[in-house]
């Protein structure tokens, strides 16, 4: 069985789902269920004391889904570490999607603060899944620090543009000693399939599901896209390289 293994834990699904931006808890749950995902991300925010909302967590079966709290909102390492510690204190397993995004326009991850936070959190026993730009050298630093995966973006969050960082992601996959999860920017099942065909170990999708007309149906579609991409990768894809022009014969000197 082709399983995804992160930090020694096995998963059948290679599609992770983000729970943000859905129009309702019902839509969120429908999408999660149809996607077949086993890992869902959540965020941490201050409670509105005057108006405590229905906790979305009540709608997520903790026996079925592994909660992956993210540190979105953190603008530096210190804030990210604090959020991770808070989620652990709230009773979550020590898994954290490390997301440090000081840039509020594109929500691009800060490489320096991410590495700083990762080093601290790994030492504190967290299973760290860092969200990064598709920077191969940063990915190596994080793996050296002991993160459980690396999560390079395909395109900026919410843009649905697909795997725009293809060349760098290919390098990251080639050099990785941990699973590579393509996260952010995947707008269609074909994008997810593309990432999987390249050899990514998993993908994380949020916006494309949340803004679909039918989030449940879209969840099912993404599930198929991820599975198709993975199966194609395992089956051995054919022509990838562009043909180049030949130079003059190089092996003529060999005599049988």
């Amino acid at each position, binding site marked *: 069985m082709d399983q995804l293994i992160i930090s020694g834990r096995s998963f059948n699904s290679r599609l992770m789902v983000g729970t943000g931006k859905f129009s309702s808890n019902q839509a969120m749950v429908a999408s999660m269920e149809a996607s077949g995902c086993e890992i869902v991300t959540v965020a941490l925010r201050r409670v509105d*004391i005057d108006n405590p909302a229905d906790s979305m967590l009540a709608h997520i079966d903790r026996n079925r889904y592994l909660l992956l709290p993210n540190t979105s909102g953190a603008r530096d390492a210190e804030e990210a570490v604090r959020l991770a510690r808070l989620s652990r204190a709230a009773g979550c397993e020590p898994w954290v999607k490390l997301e440090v995004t000081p840039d509020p326009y594109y929500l691009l991850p800060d490489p320096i603060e991410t590495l700083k936070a990762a080093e601290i959190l790994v030492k504190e026993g967290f299973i760290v899944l860092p969200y990064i730009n598709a920077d191969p050298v940063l990915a190596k630093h994080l793996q050296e620090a002991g993160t459980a995966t690396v999560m390079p973006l395909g395109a900026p969050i919410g843009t649905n543009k697909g795997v725009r960082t293809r060349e760098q992601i290919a390098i990251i996959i080639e050099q990785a000693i941990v699973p590579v999860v393509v996260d952010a920017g995947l707008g269609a099942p074909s994008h997810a399939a593309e990432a999987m065909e390249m050899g990514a170990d998993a993908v994380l999708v949020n916006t494309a599901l949340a803004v679909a007309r039918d989030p449940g149906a879209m969840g099912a579609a993404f599930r198929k896209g991820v599975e198709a991409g993975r199966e194609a990768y395992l089956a051995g894809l054919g022509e990838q390289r562009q043909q180049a022009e030949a130079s003059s014969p190089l092996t003529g000197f060999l005599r049988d």
Partner: protein
Amino acid sequence: MQLVINGQSREVSAESLAELLVELQLDTSHVAVELNQAIVESSQFATTALNENDRLEVIQFVGGG
């Protein structure tokens, strides 16, 4: 007693953190709390006493990518 919760001043009757969360109608299994800038483990909510002018951050899980 007077507390500052999530930046807001509030008069409460609760004496422990667990009681406060009940008073605020929050599910204790789904929140994280910082008391005077120190994180409190959820297992300690019942035994953590509150004092006048304590500052609290009460955090919950919400949707996120």
